[in-house]
């Protein structure tokens, strides 16, 4: 059964190749069918492979191809089947399939339809390699591959240079992270002689040879990789710009799957991170800072996709908080629920943008609920889920992150609760401004408002369903124990990731749940009061006066800062080297040296008849003469 795993990435790869090379002239529906069909097949096989693990199968490795050999460095293309990889398989292919179907409707009138579906298939292929690889190197194949697809899809509408710039920015910032990851791998290989998970972690012996600063450095450098891919401070700035791509891309790549690769990688390395308290602290604090930064910026954004993008940054931060506190399985839990509701919200925003004829500014929306009933209801469900209101999915996962914080670090607990409150507020702000009140767009837009076709709304409905029930795979421990409803996910993952030590009793856990609920509800009420009851509107750009507000709207001016301290200096340094150092210093030295023989050369001009062959002949003759005299 496990052998089937090789088929899972194969289907999307074949889909990509087929559409790219033979797709010309086929109908859009057929192309869409091939693209989504490929992912659906992967989904079916993923379920089969997942079942083996569900029934207590042992983690196995399936080798596909010898890949790189260099002495003790011996890496295969091989896939690992274990609880962590199979749970990722399920939601990548499941959510991926829904987004493919949705794209058939969303991209229907785009001239690049074939290319789009092909790229999406290619992306899923690499994402599957990422989670299936049995070593850091194989994972890195997927890691860079998804970055490539992200680049191609952000810049999908390549005629607009703004999109290309966003794509380039994403790729380059990710590469900074990747360099960290590479160095991390170098350290691990140098110290342990291996980069395969089963040699490093499952047997437990190899990783333990990582000691002292090597251990901390290895974990921190790996985390730098995660910062890039999962948009953590200071490498977060690419993600909001990545919204330049078509909305299904934002849903699939920049919310549900690729950006959670960093969480996957840290969870995969849980033995390493749990052994390094320094690295874990770094992860926690970077995570919480990012969570706050994202949430505060999201308060003031007016582009529907930008709000969701900063929300993603913030939620990813919370996941890293869980990782840093040693609750690896809970981070994975939040990855899964987040994939459901954030994909739902993005696809919902896509439906809105579709209906609004490309408009993304929520100040030009309002009152959409009567025009787009399905989009409205499903978006509301997504909003409730992310806001952390029980019993929807986001509540369970987020509540457990906050509970872990409560047990470990009271400061983090307070800050995480604050993020939670902000989340509920900005999401309901977004919801009310979009779907309630009066329509504020042009007359033309109002005239064209329509609900999206079924091919788009059905995925919304399915995701809404998952956002409602998804949380029950991780019912709180103590309370769950008392009502005989165990935390299934923790139980499932305990074979592959280090488990947190949980000591909360039923009372503590219950109180924390109530506190979290109250925070979410109060925050929701504030948003309701402001944007629904008092019908306040978001300010136009030139109306903003408060400097705090301006700072937030301008994302703390971090892009401007990077421009000043990194991009411009590098360009200036390049120009300086090119204009001055190279011709005057480096080549200048060469000219000085070459001036010496030129003086001598004048005397020997007779020999220099311009024929280079003479030089060589003279040289060889000289050489032989030299040899003979030596002997």
């Amino acid at each position: 059964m496990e052998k089937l795993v090789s088929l899972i990435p194969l289907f999307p790869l074949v889909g990509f190749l087929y559409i790219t090379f033979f797709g010309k002239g086929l109908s859009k529906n057929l192309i869409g069918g091939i693209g989504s069909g490929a992912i659906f097949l992967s989904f079916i096989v993923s379920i089969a492979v997942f079942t083996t693990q569900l029934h207590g199968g042992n983690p196995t490795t399936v080798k596909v191809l010898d890949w790189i050999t260099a002495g003790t460095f011996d890496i295969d293309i091989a896939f690992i089947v274990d609880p962590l990889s199979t749970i990722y398989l399920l939601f990548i292919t499941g959510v991926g399939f829904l987004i493919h179907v949705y794209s058939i409707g969303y991209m229907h009138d785009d001239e690049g339809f074939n290319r789009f579906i092909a790229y999406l298939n290619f992306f899923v292929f690499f994402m599957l390699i990422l989670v299936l690889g049995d070593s850091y190197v194989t994972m890195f194949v997927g890691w860079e591959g998804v970055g490539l697809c992200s680049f191609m899809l952000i810049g999908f509408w390549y005629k607009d240079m703004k999109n290309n710039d966003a794509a380039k920015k994403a790729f380059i910032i990710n590469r900074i992270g990747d360099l960290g990851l590479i160095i991390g791998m170098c350290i691990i290989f140098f110290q342990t002689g291996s980069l395969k998970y089963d040699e490093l972690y499952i047997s437990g012996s190899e990783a333990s040879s990582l000691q002292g600063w090597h251990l901390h450095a290895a974990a921190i450098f790996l985390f730098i990789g995660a910062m890039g891919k999962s948009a953590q401070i200071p490498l977060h700035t690419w993600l909001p710009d990545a919204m330049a791509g078509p909305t299904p891309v934002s849903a699939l790549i920049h919310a549900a799957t690729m950006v959670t690769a960093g969480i996957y990688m840290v969870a995969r390395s849980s033995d390493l991170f749990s052994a390094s308290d320094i690295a874990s602290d770094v992860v926690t604090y970077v995570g919480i800072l990012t969570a706050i930064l994202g949430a505060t910026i999201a308060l003031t954004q007016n582009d529907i996709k930008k709000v969701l993008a900063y929300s993603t940054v913030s939620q990813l931060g919370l996941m890293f908080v869980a990782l840093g506190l040693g609750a690896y399985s809970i981070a994975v839990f939040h990855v899964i629920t987040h994939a459901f509701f954030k994909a739902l919200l993005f696809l919902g925003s896509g439906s809105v943008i579709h209906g609004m004829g490309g408009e993304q500014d929520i100040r030009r929306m309002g009152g959409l609920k009567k025009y787009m009933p399905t989009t409205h209801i499903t978006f509301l469900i997504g909003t409730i889920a992310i806001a952390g209101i029980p019993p929807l999915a986001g509540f369970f996962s987020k509540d457990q992150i906050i509970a872990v914080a409560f047990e470990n670090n009271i400061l983090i607990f307070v800050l995480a609760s604050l993020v939670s409150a902000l989340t509920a507020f900005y999401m309901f702000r977004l919801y009310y401004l979009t779907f309630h009140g009066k329509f504020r767009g042009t007359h033309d837009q109002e005239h064209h408002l329509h609900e999206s076709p079924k091919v788009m709304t059905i995925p919304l409905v399915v995701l809404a369903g998952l956002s409602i029930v998804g949380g029950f795979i991780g019912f709180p421990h103590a309370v769950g124990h008392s009502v005989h409803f165990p935390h299934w996910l923790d139980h499932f993952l305990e074979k592959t990731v280090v488990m947190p030590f949980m000591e909360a009793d039923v009372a503590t856990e219950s109180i924390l749940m109530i506190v979290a609920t109250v925070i979410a509800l109060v925050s929701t009420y504030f948003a309701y009061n402001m944007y629904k009851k008092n019908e306040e509107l978001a300010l136009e750009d030139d109306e903003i006066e408060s400097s705090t507000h301006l700072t937030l709207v301008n994302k703390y001016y971090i892009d401007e800062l990077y421009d000043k301290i990194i991009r411009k200096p590098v360009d200036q340094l390049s120009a300086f080297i090119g204009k001055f150092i190279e011709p005057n210093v480096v080549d200048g030295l060469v000219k000085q040296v070459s001036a010496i023989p030129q003086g001598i050369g004048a005397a020997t001009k007779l020999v220099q008849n311009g024929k280079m062959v003479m030089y060589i002949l003279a040289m060889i003759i000289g050489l032989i003469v030299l040899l003979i005299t030596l002997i």
Partner: protein
Amino acid sequence: MLTIALIALPILLATVIFILGGKAAKNIALGGSLVQLALTIFAAIQLHQGQTALLNFNQVWMGSLGINLAFSLDGISIVLALLSAVVSPLIIYSTFNKTLKNASVFYGLILLMLGSMMGAFLAADAFIFYIFYEIALIPIYFLILIWGQGEDRAKVTLKFFVYTIFGSLFMLISLLYVYQHTTPRSFAFDAMYQAGQALSVVEQGLVFAGIFIAFAVKMPVFPFHTWQPSTYQAAPTAGTMLLAAIMLKMATYGLIRLVLPMVPDGLTEYGSWAIGLSVIGIVYGSLMAIAQKNFKLLIAYSSIAHVGLISAGILSGNIQGVQGGLFEMLSHGILAVAMFYVYDMFESRLGHDDINKMGGVRDGHATFAFLYFALVMGSVALPFTSGFVGEFLLLIGLYQANGWYALFGGLTVVLGAVYMLRAFQKMMLGPASAVTTAFSPMTKQDKIILIVLVALVAILGVYPDPIMKMSNTAVESILATIR
């Protein structure tokens, strides 16, 4: 005998072309290079099966001096032989759309150069290596002088020529010094290794310095590189391809053959300056590439960065570094031919290679955009392209020498993406423009060459193992002589 055939075939064909001349020259050259490819593959299969009878040749030449005509094809040489054999038909074919004066001389010189480079790659005797290493200069000198571009190319080629010869002198002195310590006198690699290792550490350090300077000029490594961009610029595209794809590999190959096993202690004790310069070259070359607006120069400087990494990795002296270096030579050779071909496509269509004056080409040239983008990805070392395997192993190897080297040299991962993506976007993307219409569709020749190169980049990236396994044993045995 096979090894001799691999060297003799191009040289004999060159003679035939010189004598016959005429229109058939280019077809003879192409056909000959394809035969060469077939022979090399045959040799690779022999090697793979462990049948080395045909792969070694040893004939006394100047007996009193201990110089033998000794050639041997092992797991290291085969990588370079394959590289030459694979790219030379492509380089020759890439000129088919050009009208050349004295075409027969042109193709004859290319074949001569291939023959002499093959001689260097297969030599099992230091003296023979040196001779072939130097002789290869003559044909390329004329190729640039006669068929090159730019008014000042005579000056440029002279600088290239003198600089390289000057560098080689240091190698000659080093080799002679080691030779003097052999008993009985011999230039055979094994004898030279033994004599070299017996030298004191200081002597080894000096011998290393001499050899490295020669190779540093040829590769080139910072700060010995200033001849390179102007020479690449002046050379006809085929000449640039020969220089970048194959010729500089004689130097990186030489590091494995003549430095690691001959003066290992000198390298370890006094070699860090050379690794340091190589690493500086990685960043320096990348920054220079960022500053360029001419595509050909951009590729030239990026080559300095890539070669710096190869040099640094090999000098780390561990198996990952050397294996990575070897594989990166193969990959870099293929990508260099590809990138200079892309340059030529733009230059011949637009009459310039200024990336700031391009854009929008993708519109209506989807296939070309796809192929060019695949090459860009190979050049930034994305996994599943040939570029990744070498670069990753080189960094793993370099880290073992010194973590800071790997961190600093690893900046190529970031900077490479900066200049390559910028060039691609400026040339290809954006709204359709006058450039879009001026860029005529790909010809059959363009398609064949680019598709073959992209296929090679992909195949070597996904399945490098057969080649890696072939070289692995040979590299292990070279490194074993050190201990």
